[in-house]
């Protein structure tokens, strides 16, 4: 057995796995102070975060305080490094005071578990012993591997979870991943025996929240007239690693507009193109990759006909706090909506409390799967 160095983020104390609870209590003790108000662990849920890269785990460990400031939770940060080097499960623990003005009235707790090689498969055993009973369980699958391909490890980690949060940004092999996700989602999110339920949530879908709002408002026939009913082309531009985000947005929009895909093709690294049949005729949908810039959808353009002329509705960010819709070819005032901060911690923190099954998301990933199948047909 060769050693992969144990992972213990800054400030955490390495301890034997069996002593995690005692260590948390020990670190909590000095924070209790002598005041009359009890200092307690703030917990809405158990949050199990799985990373498979050390750098990723380090980055996420710095996000955890922000996540739990929005959604207090017992955090179990797991690093499971694949590879031939095997390392036994190690543990570290960290209690952080939650400042409320000048006083501390609660704490947050983070337990870090590290395993490498074959022992990664045993992480769910360690997790079971450390979950706080009677609280919901959220799993944040932070690995770049799509959950559909995660296999037994995710299945075991999520055995009692009510929600799994994943991020399709940065997925490798997006077409294969998108094709597999809808099927996986259907199996995962169905109501379990005993009336239990659980949901899966993609952070990319949450990132699209303001895009969807602006598109829905702008393409409403009372605002945009016949723009959607005469559309000829829909073009989405995205930065690197954001193809799935653009794909989800395209899936959502085409589904809402009632367009049916006929055929598709890929120009690797440049563009994905589909031909749709809309009630008014054929429409081309293109997802174009920009070679640099933010990993986001950067622009959406709907080309349409109005009075035998071609016009375009163009949607793009004005800055980090606003999205704007303008019309090219016709004189109209731009529409603007405010966008809330979308840091990773914000996205995750808000998502953890948001456990409602979103039927629109379900429909959209089903459409995304159909689009993926049209590319491989």
């Amino acid at each position, binding site marked *: 057995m060769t050693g992969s160095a144990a992972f213990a983020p800054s400030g955490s104390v390495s301890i034997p796995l069996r002593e995690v609870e005692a260590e948390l209590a020990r670190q909590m003790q000095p924070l209790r102070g002598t005041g009359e108000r009890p200092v307690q662990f703030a917990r809405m849920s158990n949050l199990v975060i799985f990373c498979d890269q050390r750098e990723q785990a380090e980055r996420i460990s710095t996000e955890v305080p922000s996540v739990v400031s929005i959604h207090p939770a017992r955090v179990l940060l797991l690093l499971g490094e694949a590879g031939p080097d095997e390392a036994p499960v*190690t543990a570290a623990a960290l209690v952080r005071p939650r400042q409320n003005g000048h006083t501390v009235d609660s704490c947050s707790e983070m337990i870090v578990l590290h395993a490498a090689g074959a022992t990664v498969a045993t992480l769910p055993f360690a997790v*079971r012993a450390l979950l706080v009973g*009677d609280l919901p369980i959220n799993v944040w699958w932070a690995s770049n591997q799509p959950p559909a391909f995660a296999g037994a490890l995710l299945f075991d980690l999520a055995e009692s979870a009510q929600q799994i949060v994943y991020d399709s940004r940065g997925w490798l092999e997006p077409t294969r991943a998108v094709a597999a996700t809808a099927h996986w989602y259907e199996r995962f999110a169905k109501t379990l025996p005993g009336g239990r339920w659980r949901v899966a949530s993609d952070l990319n879908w949450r990132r699209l929240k303001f895009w969807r709002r602006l598109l829905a408002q702008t393409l409403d026939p009372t605002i945009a007239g016949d723009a959607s009913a005469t559309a000829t082309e829909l073009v989405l531009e995205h930065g690197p690693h954001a193809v799935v985000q653009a794909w989800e947005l395209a899936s959502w929009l085409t589904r809402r507009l009632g367009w049916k895909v006929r055929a598709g093709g890929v120009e690797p690294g440049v563009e994905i193109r589909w031909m749709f049949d809309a009630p008014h005729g054929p429409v081309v949908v293109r997802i174009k990759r920009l070679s640099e810039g933010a990993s986001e959808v950067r622009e959406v353009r709907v080309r349409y006909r109005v009075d035998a002329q071609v016009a375009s509705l163009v949607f793009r960010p004005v800055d980090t706090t606003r999205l704007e819709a303008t019309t090219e070819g016709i004189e109209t005032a731009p529409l603007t909506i405010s966008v809330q901060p979308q840091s990773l911690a914000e996205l995750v923190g808000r998502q953890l409390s948001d456990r*409602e099954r979103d039927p629109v998301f379900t429909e959209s990933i089903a459409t995304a799967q159909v689009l993926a199948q049209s590319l491989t047909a």
Partner: protein
Amino acid sequence: MTSARTDASADARIIEPPTTLLPQPCQLVIFGGPGDLSWRKLLPAVYNLDVDGVLPSHFTVVAFGVPAEGESGGDPDEYIRERARSGIARFSRQPLDEAHWESFARGLFFVQGSFNDMRAYEQLKARLDSLDHQFGIPGSRVFYLAVPPSLVGQCVEHLQAAGMIRDPADTTAFTRVIVEKPIGRDLISAREVNREVGAAFAESQTYRIDHYLGKETVQNLLVLRFANSIFEPLWNAKCIDHVQITVAEEEGLAQYDPATGEIIATRAGYYEGIGALRDMVQNHMLQVLCVMAMEPPWSLAPEVVRDAKVGVLNCLRPFSAADVDRNVVRGQYIEGDMYGQRVPGYRKEVRQSFEAMGRELPRASVHSTTETFMALKLFIDNWRWAGVPFYLRTGKRLPKRVSEVAIQFKDVPQILFNTNPEMQLEPTVLSVRVQPEEGLSMRIASKLPGPKIRIYPVKMEFNYASSFGGSSPEAYERLILDVMAGDATLFMRRDQVEAAWQFVTPILDRWEQNAVRDLPEYQCGTWGPVEANRLIEPDGRFWRNL
């Protein structure tokens, strides 16, 4: 000497007022004094009582038995003091304090002797009489039988023959006996043990101990129910959907040396062939069930409370063979992972344990079918609990050590906030934690802050340690003190023990009739076999996340 009283019900009808809980001067005689229970629990418990200043002013502890390693060569009293000291240092709730230890050790003695040797009892009697004079004790004795059930009859018979049992009507001094669980291994043997004890001791002198009943939270169940106005009106089939009682243990059979991986202690000799039903369900779990489900007693007098508990056992719906097949699941652990360590399965652990004990593995244990996990669904057929299922589960090598009683209330109607049938609100649950952190919690639905109505379950917690500070007395402390005070409230009466066996014996019979080669398996570090889920999930319910 007492006249033998075999009619428990006659004693059971005697209603005494609550005692003032004043322990009376006496000598505590621990049969099996050098043994494991005494080392881990009893001697540390008595030490803690001494530190807390609640022991009688005139008091001694006398251990009786043979050390595991054979006769102690030197001074027997020094031997037991050394053993007690190591047990207290390791297991005591309060740290070993030299000043207290000195005074405690002065009242600690050891009489070596075999339980089947009449001369040893005569020596014991002589030593106790001598200590009476030395410590000013009026002749009162508490005999704690920390011995296997098979030896109980022998011990009481010799105590009687040696003239060491006073008549219960004697007002100058008392004799009481504490009998450890398990009392028998089925209804017939339990009756036999009770008959043997009853031949020597009156029921009023007999204290059948189940340490779960001494735990603060179990006692608090009564307070919770009957000292608060909000719970009792809800405590019935109208408002409660179901109840789950869980006793989960991390430990398997053996303890291992972390350095060498060798077995340093094992319970295989006791547990193999006994199993979870006899070890946990018949006693601890059914006793906790009684406290949870009993009708309000009309007074706190011991017999009144015990009558109320027996009332629950008498209402348990008996299992037919088909009921056992349908409503009882057993399992056995196989190799798995606990706290990052690979741990062996039960059969291997049994084999290794017998090797470590230097004993030959019994033939029946080669392919042992002793259950290390069991789950069952039962019903209490009375007005209060009609139709409410009680789900019990217990097991070894489960992910964590936790014992609790959880009362799940009925769902709110599917209107207003609970309209989505696919995502129903989590039900309200009151959970009473017996261990490790004694306390209770209540899960309720709450609105998340923000403009939208979003419901999220929140947990309100009460924890004994953080609310009251310090550490709660161990169950054994409370119970030993109660015996010295003559308060039998928290002890099992003869009819209670037999009613519990009456309930579980059909399960044992069915298992024996329906012998299997292999039990359903579960990996160490998981919550039991999948069959346990099949017990509860068809009812639209599921085991709680603990």
